């Protein structure tokens, strides 16, 4: 499966990546190669095999509704580029 230049631009946009023209062409090639490689799986005969979305067969891994210790305020905000009033400060998001 080959990706178009538009596909790559769309993916980059959704990932908030800014690509140069050269990079777009490079990723178009690389991503297409990866998908082509995965296309090999189409050669398998999967007649009668249930679709799987997870490799694990575990079921019902649940936790009881119990409160555990929270982070301290310093820990919560340790990676905040900017903070104020015990909150993260971000630049306003334009499309909200």
């Amino acid at each position, binding site marked *: 499966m080959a990706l178009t230049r538009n596909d790559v631009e769309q993916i980059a946009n959704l990932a908030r990546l800014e690509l140069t023209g050269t990079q777009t062409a490079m990723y178009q090639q690389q991503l297409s190669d990866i998908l082509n490689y995965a296309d090999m799986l189409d050669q398998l005969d999967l007649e009668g095999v249930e679709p799987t*979305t*997870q490799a694990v067969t575990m079921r019902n891994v649940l936790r009881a*509704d119990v409160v555990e210790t929270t982070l301290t305020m310093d820990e919560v905000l340790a990676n905040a580029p900017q903070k104020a009033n*015990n*909150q993260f*400060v971000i630049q*306003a998001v334009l499309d909200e």
Partner: protein
Amino acid sequence: MSKYEAVIGLEVHAELMTDSKMFCGAPVVDSVEAEPNVAVRPLCLGMPGTLPVANKQAIEYALKVALALNCDINKFNRFDRKNYFYPDLPKGYQISQLDHPIGVNGYVDVTLESGEVKHIRVRRVHMEEDTGKLTHMADGTSLVDYNRAGVPLLEIVSEPDIHSAEVAHAYATHLRQILRYLEVNSGDLEKGVLRVEPNISIRPTGTDELNTRTEVKNLNSFRILYMASEYEIKRQTALIESGGSVVQETRGWNEERKSTFSQRIKEDAHDYRYFPDPDLPAIELDQSFIDAVRAGLPELPASKIERYQTEMGLGAADAKQLAAEKRTAIWFDAAVTAGGDPKAVANMLINNLSAMMNESGQAIDDIAVTPDSLVGLLVQVEKGVINKNIAKEVLAEMFANGGSAASIIAAKGLAQVSDDGPIRDVISTILANNPNELAAYKAGKTKLRGFFVGQVMREMKGKANPAVVNQLLDEALKS
């Protein structure tokens, strides 16, 4: 009939009242009262290496709601990632259920003020997590609080079966009552634990077209839901009648102007790239678990309203009022079970106790009057020990200081006087003391009879048996 009709579907988001969050042990706190970022664990911040584990209680609550809304239950449940970049969830996706929601194909029957019943289908009920809260500042920055990020959230989506603002309001109110009866959500719209978003379009009446719709967000009361729906219906109708067309968009509500406004979000920009969350193994619900949760469901308001009318003979308005809040309904049921006449209990509750509770700001569970003690009071009235006016006085005393009706009546000497002797004496005195009124009465001003009754009752501090007073007074006036 108007030329156009509305087509409305409602999306309702309800936070579930668990102690801890959906996928980690961070506590669920009141997002209005709590200081920001005090209920945060590494998972809430999307820290690398953290793994979500689903909260069993939240799943049980979600199942309760799906069952109460008459849904088909999907035994196989899977969580999916809804990918988007927005600072309200730092990990870059919201965990939700796309293809395998816990409940599908449900319905509720909503009774309108007129008594008409509307059948509203529920398309799906699915589990997800709430997002953090952004506060937009004047300088163009925003503050982010992650207390709410990861709180268990239920999304309840109706089919577009609603055709007026009135029905949208009634459906939302009905849903809120059910959530409160199930004790999974407080129903507090102002705190944002329950959020209602209508999708609205219009079409020529009688057709089954589905036209371009708008979605209205951030409505923090059912009154605003009603007004915003009315406004959208009128706005879209005017637009179409003047040859324009409706633009698919999200709109907000301007409370000052009482109008909706475009929030200018590009709808086609959303591409959530849902995929199954590899971190969360699927959940399979056992039939025995589903059966047990179903068996544990409380009687819901619609059933109570029906029962109060058909079995107890109450009027529709009284039945609705008693069933509106679960605790009131349970209190009422307990009083009836204790032997109280349903109409007498309903009357005391609606006409007397509610006013006292409003004044004192108490909830029904906190008042000194119990279902049993109210029945004790009604028995005193029934036996003729006290009359209805004195009963109100006794009730006020029971409300203020507790105690049984019998002991209050004894302590305060409130028992009704039915013996002829004392009443006859008082009547003689009253007639003797008011010769002018008596003369006027005898001259034909018969309205003065009420004056004499009032004087006698006042003299006897309200304790005289009204029937005996009436009878003896008539005899005295004739002589």
